[in-house]
């Protein structure tokens, strides 16, 4: 399905006009990209945990830490053994 077809589907399903849907899509997209950029900066050591907490909240910060630790241990296990 093309982007135009998806947009038409949303217009018919939600009863909202195209401009409103596009504005919301941009909002959602930018929010997602911003969140990813903050997480990426944190994982690369360019952003503090305090900043991560402030920007994304404790639940997401904890999830990021857990995922990072899981991947770090995975690679460590792969390289060094049990």
């Amino acid at each position, binding site marked *: 399905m093309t982007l135009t077809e998806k947009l038409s589907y949303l217009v018919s399903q939600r009863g909202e006009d195209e401009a409103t849907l596009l504005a919301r899509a941009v909002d959602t997209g930018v929010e997602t990209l911003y969140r*990813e950029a903050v*997480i*990426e900066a*944190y*994982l*690369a050591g360019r952003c503090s945990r305090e900043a991560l907490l402030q920007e994304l909240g404790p639940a997401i910060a904890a*999830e990021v830490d*857990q*995922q*990072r630790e*899981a*991947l*770090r*241990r*995975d*690679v460590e*296990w*792969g*390289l*060094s*053994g*049990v």
Partner: protein
Amino acid sequence: MSSGASRVSKALSDTGPILHLHEIERLDALGVFTQIEVPARVALELERLGLPPAAIRGRLGGAELVVTAPRTEQGDEGDEIGENGLLQPADRQVLALASRSRFRLPVLTDDLALRRRVEQESGVAVGSVGLLVRSFKLGRCRRSDLDQAVEALMSRSSLHMSRPFRRYVLELIRDLADR
């Protein structure tokens, strides 16, 4: 390649690593073990996903696949361990098997909730990324194969890893020497 890592003997697994490695055609990475044990509910999940144990035996890089029947008729073994509300029934069975082994056997999982429970018991949890890295470390694949497999795992498999974590993993393995 000279390596300090050895092929370890046996591991327990949930559905995730088997499914994800199948999706990128790298089931052979499970051959870092000699035997993979899965509980009945995991075998059932795999079957529902089009991966019946009979179809994947022989594709695990030399590892034997063993399906263990639950001890209880209901198949909900694992509930007695407690704090398992976040775990799926199949993962509860994996946890029960791990408990039976006193958490001495590594548990293969990409599920963070199961990983947390295993690590709380001082067990070792290993995900698909770790299996691929170990496979490389043991000289079972080349560096370029590892890079391709990790990229594929994160972009094509149902593991669904977001861009920041993809970059993080690639950074972690960036400096590994080639064979």
